[in-house]
């Protein structure tokens, strides 16, 4: 009888493992890993969208304020720096690279803010239809970045919690080799909380 029981136990455990595979968070971890990657892609997407708006913006401003070379140049350079940072999923596992990415984007935010503040002084520029459209697109993109970042932060927090809680941390460490992912810190949030002011 004991042989029978032993075989049954083994068989049922195997059956369980194969059929559900959700014990100790295996599926949860995989799911959250994918969710954080998707959330991160969305963040990258929106930052890229912002970078894409800039050449147009620079050209429009040049049409009215070509002599403001310094400000225009700094925006172009900041954009180049931001788009040069390699964006891969590995970025999430590398804290240093993540910080570099954030700094580059913040640099761009700063340069953009200065450019838009400058535009305030040129009434013709402000009245230009193309410029107004670009302004609204920029504002929209900044809002989208805010939402994407917020959702990424929430997803990563969920994922990191699962990686750290017992017993799912065992699954994470030994079975899946998943580690905590990088997250935007509070200090960065404060800096980003003030997007370039877009005033009419």
């Amino acid at each position: 009888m004991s042989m029978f029981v032993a075989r049954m136990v083994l068989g049922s455990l195997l059956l369980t493992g194969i059929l559900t595979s959700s014990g100790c968070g295996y599926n949860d971890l995989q799911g959250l890993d994918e969710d954080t990657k998707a959330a991160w892609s969305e963040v990258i997407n929106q930052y890229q969208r912002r970078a894409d708006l800039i050449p147009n913006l620079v050209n429009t401003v040049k049409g009215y304020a070509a002599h403001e070379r310094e400000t225009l140049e700094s925006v172009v350079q900041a954009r180049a720096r931001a788009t040069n940072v390699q964006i891969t999923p590995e970025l999430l596992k590398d804290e240093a690279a993540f910080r570099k990415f954030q700094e580059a984007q913040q640099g761009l935010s700063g340069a953009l803010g200065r450019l838009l503040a400058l535009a305030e002084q040129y009434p013709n520029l402000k009245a230009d239809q193309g410029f107004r459209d670009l302004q609204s697109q920029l504002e929209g993109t900044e809002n989208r970045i805010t939402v994407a970042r917020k959702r990424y932060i929430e997803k990563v927090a969920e994922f990191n919690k699962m990686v750290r809680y017992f017993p799912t941390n065992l699954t994470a460490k030994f079975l899946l080799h998943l580690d905590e992912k990088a997250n935007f810190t509070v200090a960065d949030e404060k800096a980003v909380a003030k997007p370039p002011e877009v005033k009419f």
Partner: protein
Amino acid sequence: MQLCGRGGKAVLAGWVWLALMPGLPAWALDVPSLSGPVVDVAHVLPPATVEQLSQELRAHEAKTSNQVAVLIVPSLGGEPLFDFSHRVATTWKLGRKGTDNGVLLLVALKDRKIRLEVGYGLEGVLTDARSAQIIRNEIVPRFRTGEFAAGVTAGVRAVLSTIEGTDHVPERPSPSPSGSDRLGQVLSAVIVGVVIGLVFSRTHRMLGPVVGGGVSFIAAPWLLPALIAGGVSLLLVSLLGGWGLSAGPRRGHRTSGFDETWFSTHRGGWGSGDLSGSFGGGDSFSGSGGDFGGGGASGDW
């Protein structure tokens, strides 16, 4: 030295306060309830306008499934315009889940601010630039002369005509509905546990429920679903075992057939979790699960 001590205490107090501050400022306004397509908390629109606009918005929804709503508040309560607008739109969940075809027109009277919050699915037609144009050309000029009813009406009509041809908006892949997945996993765990438990009930009366509960506990997600699954299985196996339903070679074919088909049809089938609310006829009104990504435009007058 004394100065340093006092300054230090103040800084510490400041940090403690900051650390304790919740994500949302304590004074943030509650999201008003979605009583109809036009929610005028500030009572600035005449009832006739509210009625007229509500009708037009309900008709538009019936025709295209796009959900457009208007919210007029007396003030933002100190919260930034975008934060409040996005909060309201995502709480109300305007637009259909997955299609995300919702639009919110928000007016804050005291702050003199207007915002059009556009759902993911409509960003392609009601672009940021177009939203800004509507606000700038239709709403602001009328608001500046105090014609709020006319301004809101003109704005709403411009929005509707912009999104009119969009009863077939591109699907945006929606995030996995974790609630329904959880339910599916718990149920799968319970079923596996019960089946296995019933097998063991043949060998010993007590063994069945314990094994069944244990198997479900391991199979379900940690921790609460696991406890629930384990408990339910334990109960079910003891009840079913008691009624003489314990499985075994004699009834083998029924059991194995049972759990195979049960599994294949129900494994992934709990997933869609579709919230099927709608503006609807009569007085009922609710969002259908749409999401907002931050698109739209703001303005002031």
